[in-house]
């Protein structure tokens, strides 16, 4: 077996750091604007809806739904080659924000648009950063 190369490492900045720290604590954190009450993801300096800069961090409940997905058979990087076929999905959290992630612990052929999913956190070899992903909501 070839050596498994490390996957790209996240570089948190002052805006995204609460998100990445939250992931390490098993929390999916997202921003909600105090002025217009809209939620957003990915973390930004300002609200994308009203440009307000009073943003509050909230923790998602973890429930969501697959909005779209594709099954990757040909990895873009050598470090992902061992994972193929794997699922790349857009997931809508119940609180509103949409994010991109993998659907883990699931046969790729079983993924469906509209499928209920639950946020989970993936640990990767050689990295201290846990990565927010999803798995099927009924996975035990």
């Amino acid at each position: 077996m070839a050596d498994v190369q490390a996957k790209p490492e996240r570089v948190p900045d002052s805006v995204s750091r609460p998100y990445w720290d939250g992931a390490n604590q098993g929390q999916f954190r997202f921003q909600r604007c105090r002025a217009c009450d809209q939620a957003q993801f990915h973390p930004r300096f300002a609200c994308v809806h009203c440009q307000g800069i009073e943003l509050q961090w909230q923790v998602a409940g973890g429930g969501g739904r697959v909005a779209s997905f594709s099954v990757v058979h040909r990895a873009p990087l050598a470090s992902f080659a061992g994972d193929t076929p794997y699922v790349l999905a857009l997931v809508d959290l119940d609180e509103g924000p949409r994010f991109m992630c993998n659907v883990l612990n699931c046969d790729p052929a079983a993924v469906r648009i509209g499928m209920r999913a639950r946020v989970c956190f993936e640990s990767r070899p050689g990295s201290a950063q846990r990565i927010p992903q999803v798995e099927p909501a009924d996975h035990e």
Partner: protein
Amino acid sequence: MVVSARDTARDGPKRAVEPLGTGEGHTHEHIFCAPSLVDFGCRQSLSDALGQAGVTHRDVDCAHVYRCFTSTLLITLESMGFYGRGEAGPAALAGEFAISGRFPVNTNGGLLSHGSSGAAGGMFHVVEAVRQLRGECGPRQVRDVQVALARTLGGIFSGHCFVIIGRC
């Protein structure tokens, strides 16, 4: 694109063509931030370009449309309003995009066949649009092109730019 004053049109050795309208529309950077997964900034920005040019969808004689992937062409032709939802695929199969078809598209083969220069890929479409208008395309010449469309796309359906070109 390098353009010159309209009154220099007579001075060039080739048939003069001119930009009639332009449009740009960008709704997001990352695909998970897109307001829709089927309608993109191209709908409004093409509408702006057509309005500026004073032409309608039906007046476009040939379209040169950024196609990084096969599905991109079909999705964007529908989002641009040339076809209704789900209609572009059957139109392709029916031969509508052929050089002699109802709506010639990417007569040079498009990025997948002609080649892609990466970020400058859209410029191949501008070149082909101008050549069609000038009648220089030989075996791939569309009959009587008066209005041609060139369109480029950036990111994941993120950035959209149009130029509508016509004969002077």
